[in-house]
């Protein structure tokens, strides 16, 4: 039997986490949760997930800083990372400047709120690529 895909969900909004976890668990996915960027990075290292859903706005360490650290780490950089944002994403994807000499290229941006179908479709698409 194929191993279940492991998804790391990093978001400080408990209601969103609960709802999203429930949606993801309708599929054979194992869901791990972290509530800020630091915890997310730690769990990414420990659990080696197959995909990361990362909120942009969080306390302690925001999604951009966490994603920068993920993408700088050769071990973690290959994990597809989808950014969750409460502000509508429009237009073409462009790299986001996060620090001197580092522009962030994550796999995708997902607008909140997102329908269950859309969320699952995106997750599935990047799991397949990985």
């Amino acid at each position, binding site marked *: 039997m194929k191993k279940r895909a492991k998804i790391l969900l990093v978001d400080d909004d408990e209601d969103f986490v609960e709802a999203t976890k429930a949606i993801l668990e309708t599929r054979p996915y194992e869901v791990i949760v972290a509530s800020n960027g630091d915890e997310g990075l730690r769990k990414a290292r420990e659990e080696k997930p197959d995909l990361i859903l990362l909120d*942009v*706005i969080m306390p302690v360490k*925001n999604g*951009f800083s966490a994603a920068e650290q993920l993408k700088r780490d050769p071990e973690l950089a290959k994990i597809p990372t989808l*950014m969750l*944002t*409460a*502000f509508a*994403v429009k*237009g073409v994807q*462009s*790299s*986001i*400047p*996060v*620090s*001197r000499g580092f*522009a962030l290229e994550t796999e995708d*941006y997902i607008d909140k709120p997102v329908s269950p179908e859309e969320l699952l479709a995106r997750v599935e698409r990047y799991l397949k690529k990985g």
Partner: protein
Amino acid sequence: MKEKILLVDDDPDILDAISMILQSQGYQVVTARDGVEGLASLRAEKPALMILDLLMPKMDGFAACKELQDPRWAKYRDIPILILTSVREEASRRRYELETGLELDVDDYVEKPVSPDILLERVGRLIKKKEKA
């Protein structure tokens, strides 16, 4: 002595070079090395213009711009902000929108490297605009 300009950048070479360019035209220059120092200087020095880098340690330029939207900074809001950065304008605006849901509210945006002439022209324009207001 001409107007006072606050220059915020974490790169000491940029601080030196831009200070020299501005001082050559008689402007007074105050410098800061990150957003925290920059906002403190803004309060203390009340400059005629702030030139702000975006990517800096501690508090970066994005966070400084966001902080300035807070009502307690209302009386400093008439100080024009010129962003001076090596990051492309479109990419910066996009990041700010994703993070805050707001448009980056700055008076001008200049990409590094910039020639002294162009920088001085843009600085002069903003200072004139402020005097008229």
